[in-house]
C-alpha cells in the first residue's frame, strides 16, 4: 500500500470568531457608555440599595464617576473576550459586560433625578413577576419544539388558562382548583393543536394562529356573557398565598425574590430544573430530542414518534395553562379580555433567546422581565427616556440573538415538520 496523504481537516480558523465579534460589540458599547452616559450624568450621586424601598442602607457613587467606571468595566469585559481561551468564559464575560453597561446607564439616570436612590430589591421582584408567565410559556415551547411541533398557540393556552383559573377559583373559592382548571384550559387548546398538527398534518403556524384567535374570542365571549354580568360570582378569585422558606427568605435581594414568594415561582423554578433533567438525562428526553431532530431515525429504533409528540405538546399545554393562571391569580385578581397581551409570543421569543433549553428560557425570561421592570422603575423617577424604548429592548436582543450575535442558535432539525411514515 502507498502511504495515504492526509491534509488536515481542522476547521479554517476564522479571525472574526463569535467571541471576537461579541467582544468588539461589548467593548464599543462600554466605551460609548463611559463617554455618553458620563457626559450626560447629572450632579446627584447615584445610590443603590438592596432593599425593596428607599429607606434602607444605600451605596452611593458620584454619577459621572459611576457612569465612566461602569462603562470602562464593560469595555474591559468586552476586551476580555479577545483573550485566548475566552471561549470558556464567554457567558460570564458577556453577562459582566451587559451588567456593567446597564450599571453605567443607571448611574446616569439616577444622577439626573431627584429620586436618586434605586431599590434593587423592588426591580428584582418586578423582574421575577414579569418573567413568571414567560417561564411557563417558554417551557411549553421547549417541550413542543424539542419534539418537533411548533406551539405558537401558547398565547391561546395562556388566555384560556387565565380565564379558567379566574372562573373556577371564584366559583369554587379555591385558588388550587383554579390552577387545576387553568392546566385543563391549556390542555384543551394544546389537544386541538396536537390533533390538527400531528394527526391531520395541518400547517402548525396556521393552526396555532387560528387557535389563538379562537381562544381569545371564546374567552372574550364568556367574559361578556358571565363575568361582566356578575363579577362577584364569576370573576373575583383570591390571590395565591405567599410562602416563606425559613431563614432563606431573609437573604438580602434574593430572599424576597426566590424564598418569600408565591406557589407559581416555586413551581416555575422546579419545572425548569425538572424539564432540564428530563430532557438531557432521561429516556424520555433522549427520545423527545431524537423525535425532534430525526424522527425517521427514532422510528426505526422503535420509538413511537407521534406518541412522543402528542405527549410533549399536551404536557406543554398544561404548563402554558398554568402560566395563564399567573395572570388572574397572581398578577391581578380578575380576568379581563385579551389580558395576556401577546406575552405568549414573547414566551416563544424567550425560548429562542434561551436556545431551546429550559435554563436558557429561565435566563431569557428574567432578562425580559428585568427590562420591563426597569422601564417601569425609570418611569417612576421621571426619566426622560420614553418607556417604550426600554420595552423594546428585549425584542431587539432577541433579534440580535436570532441573527447569531450571541452564538449559534439552531432549532431542532425537524421542528415544525409533520412526520409521515414511509
Amino acid at each position, binding site marked *: *500500500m*502507498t502511504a495515504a496523504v492526509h491534509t488536515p481537516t481542522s476547521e479554517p480558523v476564522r479571525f472574526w470568531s463569535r467571541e471576537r465579534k461579541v467582544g468588539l460589540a461589548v467593548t464599543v458599547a462600554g466605551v460609548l457608555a463611559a463617554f455618553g452616559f458620563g457626559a450626560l450624568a447629572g450632579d446627584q450621586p447615584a445610590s443603590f440599595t438592596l432593599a425593596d424601598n428607599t429607606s434602607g442602607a444605600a451605596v452611593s457613587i458620584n454619577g459621572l464617576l459611576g457612569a465612566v467606571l461602569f462603562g470602562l468595566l464593560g469595555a474591559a469585559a468586552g476586551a476580555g473576550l479577545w483573550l485566548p481561551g475566552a471561549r470558556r468564559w464567554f457567558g460570564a464575560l458577556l453577562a459582566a459586560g451587559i451588567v456593567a453597561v446597564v450599571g453605567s446607564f443607571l448611574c446616569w439616570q439616577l444622577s439626573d433625578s431627584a429620586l436618586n436612590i434605586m431599590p434593587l430589591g423592588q426591580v428584582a421582584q418586578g423582574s421575577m413577576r414579569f418573567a413568571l408567565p414567560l417561564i411557563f410559556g417558554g417551557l411549553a415551547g421547549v417541550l413542543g419544539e424539542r419534539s418537533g411541533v411548533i406551539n405558537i398557540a401558547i398565547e391561546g393556552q395562556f388566555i384560556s388558562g387565565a380565564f379558567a383559573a379566574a372562573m373556577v377559583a371564584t366559583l369554587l373559592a379555591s385558588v388550587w382548583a383554579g390552577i387545576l382548571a387553568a392546566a385543563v384550559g391549556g390542555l384543551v387548546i394544546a389537544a386541538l393543536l396536537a390533533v390538527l398538527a400531528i394527526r391531520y398534518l395541518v400547517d402548525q403556524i396556521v393552526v396555532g394562529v387560528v387557535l389563538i384567535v379562537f381562544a381569545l374570542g371564546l374567552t372574550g365571549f364568556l367574559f361578556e356573557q358571565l363575568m361582566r354580568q356578575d363579577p362577584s360570582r364569576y370573576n373575583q378569585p383570591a390571590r395565591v398565598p405567599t410562602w416563606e422558606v425559613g431563614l432563606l427568605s431573609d437573604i438580602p435581594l434574593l430572599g424576597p425574590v426566590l424564598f418569600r414568594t408565591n406557589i407559581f415561582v416555586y413551581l416555575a423554578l422546579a419545572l425548569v430544573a425538572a424539564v432540564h433533567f428530563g430532557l438531557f438525562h432521561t429516556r424520555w428526553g433522549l427520545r423527545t430530542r431524537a423525535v425532534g431532530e430525526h424522527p425517521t431515525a427514532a422510528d426505526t429504533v422503535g420509538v413511537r414518534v407521534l406518541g412522543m409528540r402528542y405527549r410533549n405538546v399536551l404536557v406543554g399545554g398544561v404548563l402554558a395553562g398554568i402560566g395563564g393562571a399567573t395572570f388572574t391569580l397572581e398578577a391581578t385578581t380578575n380576568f379581563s379580555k385579551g389580558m395576556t397581551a401577546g406575552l405568549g409570543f414573547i414566551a416563544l421569543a424567550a425560548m429562542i433567546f434561551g436556545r431551546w433549553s429550559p435554563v436558557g428560557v429561565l435566563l431569557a425570561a428574567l432578562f425580559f422581565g428585568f427590562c420591563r421592570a426597569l422601564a417601569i422603575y425609570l418611569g417612576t423617577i421621571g426619566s426622560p427616556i420614553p418607556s417604550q424604548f426600554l420595552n423594546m429592548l428585549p425584542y431587539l436582543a432577541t433579534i440580535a440573538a436570532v441573527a447569531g450575535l450571541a452564538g449559534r442558535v439552531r432549532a431542532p432539525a425537524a421542528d415544525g415538520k409533520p412526520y409521515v411514515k414511509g
Partner: protein
Amino acid sequence: MLANDHIDLTVEPGEIHALLGENGAGKSTLMNVLYGLVQPDQGEIVIDGRRVECHAPQDAIEAGIGMVHQHFMLVPVFTVTENVMLGAEQTHGGPVAALDRRRARERVVEVSREYGLAMDPDAIVEDLPVGVQQRIEIVKVLTREVDLLILDEPTAVLTPQEIDDLLAVMRALQAAGKSIVFITHKLREVKAIADRITVIRGGRVVATTGPETSEDELAAMMVGRSVSLAVDKQPAQLGEPVLEVAGLAVDDERGHRAVDRVDLTVHAGEVLGIAGVQGNGQTELVEAIMGLRPVVAGTVSLRGRSLAGRRTKQILHSRVGYVPEDRSVDGLVKEFTVAENLVLNMYDTEPFGTRFMLHRDAITKSAADRVARFDVRTSSPQAPAATLSGGNQQKVIVARELTRPLTLFVAAQPTRGLDVGSIEFIHRQIIHERDVGTAVLLVSSELEEVLALADRVAVMYRGRIHAVVPPDTPREEVGLLMAGGSTSGEPA
C-alpha cells in the same frame, strides 16, 4: 403500485445473501416489509420456523432483525453513545428512567471491540466521516443482539478502501454466526462476498444463484437483456479551453472550506470527469461554477470572460447547461407539468414567452417533440413531473438542458439512482453533446461512470483536485487516489 410480486427469499444462518437488482426493482421495498416499515398485502415471514408479524420496526428488532439503512438513521447532534442507545436505553430504572450513560458507553466500546469497529463513543455524529457513521449504524444494530442484518446499499457512499473494510466486517459478522442480507446493484461486491445471490427484477425473483455466476450473466439477469456497460465513443477532438477555474475556494453551509484552491480547465469537445467520494467538495464546486454559491477566492471564467458576480440565470443564458445533482429538489418543480419543467430555463425567452407572457402553444408543442425525442415515458406532457419515475424525470431535465446550443454542459450525478436503460440513454446523450463540440464537466461518485465517459479524470479529495489521470488508469489506482493516497506515477 405492486413493488413486490410473490417474492420468495430464504436466508440460511451464517450466510451472506446478496439481493441484487436495479434501482426500482423492489429490493428496498422487500426489506422494508421485513423490517416492519411497510405492511405486505399477502405472504409471510418465518424466522427459525416461527411465523412473525412485523407491524413496526420494534417487532422486527424483537424478532432478531436489524437494518442498516441506505440513508443513515443517526441523529446528527447526538453522540455516538446516544445514537446507539436510542430506543433501547440503559437506564437506572424506575418511572424516571434516568439514562445510565456509563453503562451505555461500555456497551458501545464492548461491541465495537468485539467486531473491530473502531469509534469514539463520545464523538458527535455529525462531525464524523460517513465511513464511521456506517460503523455506528452497524454497532447500533449489533447491540440489539440481532441474528439477521440487512445492509441496504451500504457501499454507495464509501471509498473503495472503506468498502474493503466493510467487507471485512461482514466476514467477521458471518464468522460470529450472523446472517446478512446485502442489498446492492454493484456486481463486483456481490461476487466478492456473497454466498448466495438472489436477483430481482420488476418486483419478481429472477433467479437465486451462487457467486460462481459471471458478472455478465448477473447483469443480464438484473436488466433482462444483455448489457454492455462500456460506452461506445471515439477519441475526443479537443478545442479551445471553455471553462477555466483558477484558485477557486468555496465554503459549505457551515462555513467550512469545501473547495480549496481548485484549478480546472475544460476544453470544447472533451468530457472532464470529476471522480471522488461524495462530500469531498464536488457539490460546492459545481454550485460555485453555476453561481449558486458564493466564491470565496479565485476565478471562474467561460471562454475567457469571468463569471464573477453573474447570476445563475445569466450563466444559463450564456449557453451553459446544468443538471443538478438532486433532481427532485433542484432539478424539477415536481408539481409542475412535464411541459412546464421543460421550459424552466427558457420560459421568458422566445419562442416560449416574453417578459410578461407565456406562449402556451409553443411550450406544449415543444414539449411533445422533446418527450418523443428523449423517450420520456409519461402519460402526457401535461402530467405533473412527480408522476414520472426517477429515470424519466432525469430525462426531462436532460431534455431541457440539451435542446439548446451549449458551450458548456455541467452534469452532476446525472444517473444517480436510475435504471440501466436510462443510464445508457443519458450516457449516449452526454457523449453526443461532447461530439458536437460542447465542453462537458461531469461529476459523479460512481467511479465506473467517470472512467467510462471522461476523457480526463480529475480526482477530488477534501476539496482539492488531488490528481488528474487518463481514463484508462486502473480502477484500483483511482480508488486509492479517491481515498487521498498517491500513485507512483503522476504527481498530484
